[in-house]
């Protein structure tokens, strides 16, 4: 039989062994040969997740709800798959900013906010202290079980003894001493505790080995393997019901809620943050832990159900508490040493949790609750103290004692009360409130301080109201009417049927309402306002941490001045002068500078000092402290504007460049088309010259021919001679006319022609023209008629030029009329904006093909009857130029064989338009 003394000795020996391991770990770390720097130790330290709640509680839970114990381990398995992104980010950020607790992390993410850090700390302490009490209770219960077996098995906890006679009190004291020795050995910017981690990893091995040993003993020792055990269990009606109905079929909503809660707990519980983020030596270790840690959970869960079933079959129903099966089964078979191993396993599960959780909480309490307050109390003049490191360590140690004492008091008061039974899940629900601010902060840049603050507060209050206070009511510390009738008797406010929501278990109920409020407020309040500059800067550093590794840690915008000596003194006040000078020396080395005296106090150094101090007192306080020595010129709005301005100027400049290049392209295109036009004009000029010379040669040839005839034949008759001389004169005149027209056209086209506009009466012009040509018309027997209105509005144009146009069109008409009853009719029509002059003939007409080019130079319609062109071919071209000069239009409508109508318009002056419009 085991005596109390033996058990006490073994307990103390075990804790002594932990001391030795921790000491060895620290020594190796100081010597630079870490024993924890490998993924296996890292994984084992993560297994601090498995507490006595796993070791004893899982079996108890399996005995009442079958498979219902499993979600608590499936959730972390699922989350492990996301560690690749989530945990890696947390580790990177924490290393870059020397973040040492989850409160610090959240505070730092939202612009280094004291209030947020404090709130997180309070929630964590309130949520976790009962959980610590649960571990103490487990230690106490296992102690009394193993001591009093086979008596007193239902009431697993001893009747409350005066605490001086209570072993649990001494265990708590011992744990406090251990935690203080190895958790606050010295202040370090990284807050890493190698020896402690080594001890925790060792504990993880112990609890796994112990539990599996008991499992194997039950399955293969007491029964004949799984097959036998399950078959026998199925034969018992109650157990069969548990196996079938108590399985997952029970309540899928509870199942899902527990999965989600445990998923969040594995990254948000302070102790998990401590071991997985703060104590992480190398982020590569994360890799293997992703699958090794779930494997550990798998291994420790295989035998939960066999032990539960074995216990229920072995002991008569109701005689032994299922929570103690791990101990009582070996005891009942007289396997004393196995029972002792199980006891030590349970002890390691409890102590591991208590130690790490206490360190994590004490860091938070010191950095995010006590220090900010102390530093603000001007009366203490703390900011002027020379060396604060002793004070800091003192606060940490006091916090450790305080938290453990709190846990013990809770355990002592709660005893066997309801409050302890499902306290694990209540704690999980509390830390789950960090999820929106934490995960949102990791992946969403828009989250703001106010959003996080309001979400957290709302979630916390709902947790308090719907989970923690009801547990107090069930323990009898609050009137039970609080639960059954709601606060003030208002039905809708029943804590566990909030707003009438029913049909959910209390955990799912709390999870739903708290997350609704938490996420809802976090998102909506964050979206309410634009983040401030500080929040924005931090958000970028956190969310994009995987993107810029090397540059990611530096402050984005900083202006200020400080001396290196000031900074070193400041750091010395928090971590001690020696460590400070070491730290500066190593910083100088890392910057490639020979000595500390050659350092310059720039933004990077200030940030380095700030992050070192942050390790000791938290990021928010560190910022204040650094600001006290660094004459930091706050980034004024104008400067921010300048930075933004510079950025936008650069942007504008690049836009201008783009614009310029587009313009250049357009100019190039214009040049290219201008060049093409020039080439075209050049070609036209060549054509023109060759045509003109050709046209000139025709009359010249005939003049020369007739002159030669006259010269060679002096005996020609006079009549003949006169005829030839007449031809020569006419050809000369034609030549002169042609040259005049060419010159005229050239002048008009080049813009060198002189214009003499005057008020013009078209009636008069047309009458003059018809008079001038009446002789020719009479000779050719063509009837010329006019249809002119009595009064015409005046137009402004050069009289001679317009006269020329009319004359040209009339002589053209005469040239193409060769029928016996030829007629030419000239008319003027007053249009809305212009005068239209029409000259219509009933001559041979112009084919559609010819109409298209008759207005071009030297193009004329060949006379189909004579084959010889009449005129120079420039008349219409010149007419068109003249009409176009006065913004008019010249065109022809013609049907071959019936006649042609040439029309041109001359715009009316504006005043006339106005007159007509009126």
């Amino acid at each position, binding site marked *: 039989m085991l005596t109390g003394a033996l058990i006490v000795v073994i307990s103390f020996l075990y804790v002594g062994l932990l001391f030795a391991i921790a000491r060895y770990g620290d020594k190796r770390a100081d010597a630079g040969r870490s024993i924890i720097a490998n993924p296996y130790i890292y994984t084992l330290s993560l297994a601090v997740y498995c507490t006595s709640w796993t070791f004893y509680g899982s079996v108890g839970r399996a005995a009442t709800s079958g498979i219902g114990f499993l979600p608590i381990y499936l959730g972390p398995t*699922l989350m492990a798959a996301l560690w690749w992104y989530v945990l890696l980010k947390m580790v990177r950020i924490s290393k870059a900013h020397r973040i040492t607790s989850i409160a610090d992390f959240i505070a730092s993410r939202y612009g280094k906010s004291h209030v947020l850090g404090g709130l997180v700390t309070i929630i964590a302490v309130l949520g976790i202290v009962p959980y610590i009490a649960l571990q103490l209770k487990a230690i106490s219960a296992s102690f009394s079980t193993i001591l009093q077996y086979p008596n007193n098995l239902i009431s697993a906890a001893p009747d409350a003894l005066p605490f001086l006679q209570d072993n649990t009190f001494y265990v708590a004291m011992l744990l406090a001493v251990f935690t203080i020795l190895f958790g606050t050995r010295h202040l370090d910017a990284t807050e890493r505790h190698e020896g402690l981690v080594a001890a925790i990893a060792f504990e993880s091995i112990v609890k796994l080995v112990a539990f599996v040993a008991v499992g194997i003993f039950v399955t293969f020792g007491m029964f004949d393997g799984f097959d036998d055990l*399950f078959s026998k269990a199925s034969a018992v009606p109650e157990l069969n019901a548990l196996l079938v109905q108590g399985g997952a*079929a029970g309540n899928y909503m509870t*199942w899902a809620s527990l999965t989600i809660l445990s998923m969040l707990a594995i990254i948000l519980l302070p102790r998990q943050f401590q071991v997985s983020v703060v104590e992480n030596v190398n982020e590569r270790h994360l890799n*293997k832990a992703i*699958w090794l840690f*779930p494997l550990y959970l798998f291994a420790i869960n295989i035998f939960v159900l066999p032990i539960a079933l074995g216990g229920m079959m072995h002991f008569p129903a109701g005689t032994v508490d299922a929570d103690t099966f791990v101990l009582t089964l070996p005891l009942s078979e007289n396997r004393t040493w196995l029972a002792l191993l199980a006891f030590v396993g349970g002890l390691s599960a409890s102590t591991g949790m208590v130690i790490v959780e206490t360190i994590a909480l004490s860091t938070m309490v010191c950095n995010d609750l006590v220090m900010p307050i102390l530093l603000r109390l001007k009366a203490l003049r703390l900011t002027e103290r020379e060396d604060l490191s002793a004070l800091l360590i003192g606060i940490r140690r006091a916090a450790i004692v305080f938290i453990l004492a709190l846990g013990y008091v809770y355990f002592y008061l709660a005893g066997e009360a309801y409050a302890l039974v499902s306290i694990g899940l209540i704690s999980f629900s509390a830390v789950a409130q960090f999820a929106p601010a934490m995960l949102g902060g990791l992946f969403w840049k828009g989250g703001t301080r106010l959003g996080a603050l309001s979400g957290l507060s709302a979630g916390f209050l709902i947790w308090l109201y719907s989970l923690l206070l009801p547990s107090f009511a069930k323990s009898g510390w609050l009137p039970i009417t609080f639960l059954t009738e709601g606060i003030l008797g208002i039905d809708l406010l029943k804590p566990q049927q909030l707003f009438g929501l029913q049909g959910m278990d209390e955990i799912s109920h709390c999870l739903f309402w708290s997350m609704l409020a938490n996420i809802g407020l976090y998102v909506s309040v964050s979206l309410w306002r634009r983040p401030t500059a500080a929040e924005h800067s931090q958000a970028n550093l956190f969310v994009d941490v995987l993107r810029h590794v090397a540059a990611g840690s530096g402050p984005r915008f900083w202006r200020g001045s400080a001396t290196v000596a000031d900074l070193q003194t400041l750091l010395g006040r928090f971590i001690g002068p020696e460590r400070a000078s070491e730290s500066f020396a190593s910083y100088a080395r890392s910057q490639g500078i020979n000595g500390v005296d050659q350092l310059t106090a720039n933004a990077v150094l200030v940030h380095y000092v700030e992050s070192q101090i942050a390790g000791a007192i938290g990021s928010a306080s560190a910022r204040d402290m650094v600001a006290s020595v660094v004459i930091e010129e706050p980034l004024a709005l104008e400067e921010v504007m300048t930075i933004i301005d510079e950025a936008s100027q650069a942007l504008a400049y690049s836009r201008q460049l783009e614009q310029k290049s587009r313009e250049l392209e357009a100019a190039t295109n214009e040049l290219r088309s201008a060049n093409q036009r020039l080439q075209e004009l050049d070609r036209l000029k060549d054509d023109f010259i060759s045509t003109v010379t050709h046209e000139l040669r025709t009359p010249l040839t005939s003049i020369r021919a007739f002159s030669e005839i006259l010269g060679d034949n002096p005996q020609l008759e006079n009549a003949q001679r006169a005829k030839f001389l007449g031809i020569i004169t006419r050809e000369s005149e034609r030549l002169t006319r042609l040259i005049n027209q060419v010159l005229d056209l050239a002048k008009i086209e080049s813009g060198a022609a002189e214009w003499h506009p005057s008020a013009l009466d078209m009636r008069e012009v047309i009458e003059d023209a018809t008079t001038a040509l009446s002789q020719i018309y009479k000779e050719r027997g063509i009837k010329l008629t006019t249809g002119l209105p009595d009064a015409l509005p005046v137009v402004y144009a050069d009289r001679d030029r317009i006269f020329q146009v009319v004359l040209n069109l009339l002589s053209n008409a005469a040239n193409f009329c060769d029928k016996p009853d030829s007629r030419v009719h000239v008319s003027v029509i007053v249009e809305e904006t212009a005068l239209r002059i029409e000259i219509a003939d009933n001559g041979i007409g112009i084919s559609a093909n010819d109409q298209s080019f008759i207005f071009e130079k030297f193009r004329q319609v060949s006379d189909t009857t004579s084959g010889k062109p009449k005129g120079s071919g420039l008349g219409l071209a010149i007419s068109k130029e003249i009409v176009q000069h006065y913004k008019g239009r010249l065109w022809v409508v013609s049907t071959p064989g019936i006649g042609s109508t040439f029309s041109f318009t001359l715009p009316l002056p504006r005043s006339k338009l106005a007159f007509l419009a009126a």
Partner: protein
Amino acid sequence: MIRPTLKGQRLVALFLLGCLLFNYPLLSLFAGDMRIWGIPLVYVYLFSAWAILIAAMALIIERRDQ
């Protein structure tokens, strides 16, 4: 240095698969009265799905990038 590569995406996919496997409605398919070697089907299912998931994670992590 851990690079957020294909491995990370594979793990996320595995996470989603796990969420499906470990929850209603897939879970309810195995809630019957059937036994395998005397062990209720749902236990066999959960533990084997769990084991497979862990094995897949190990495979993804440990496999060298081609």
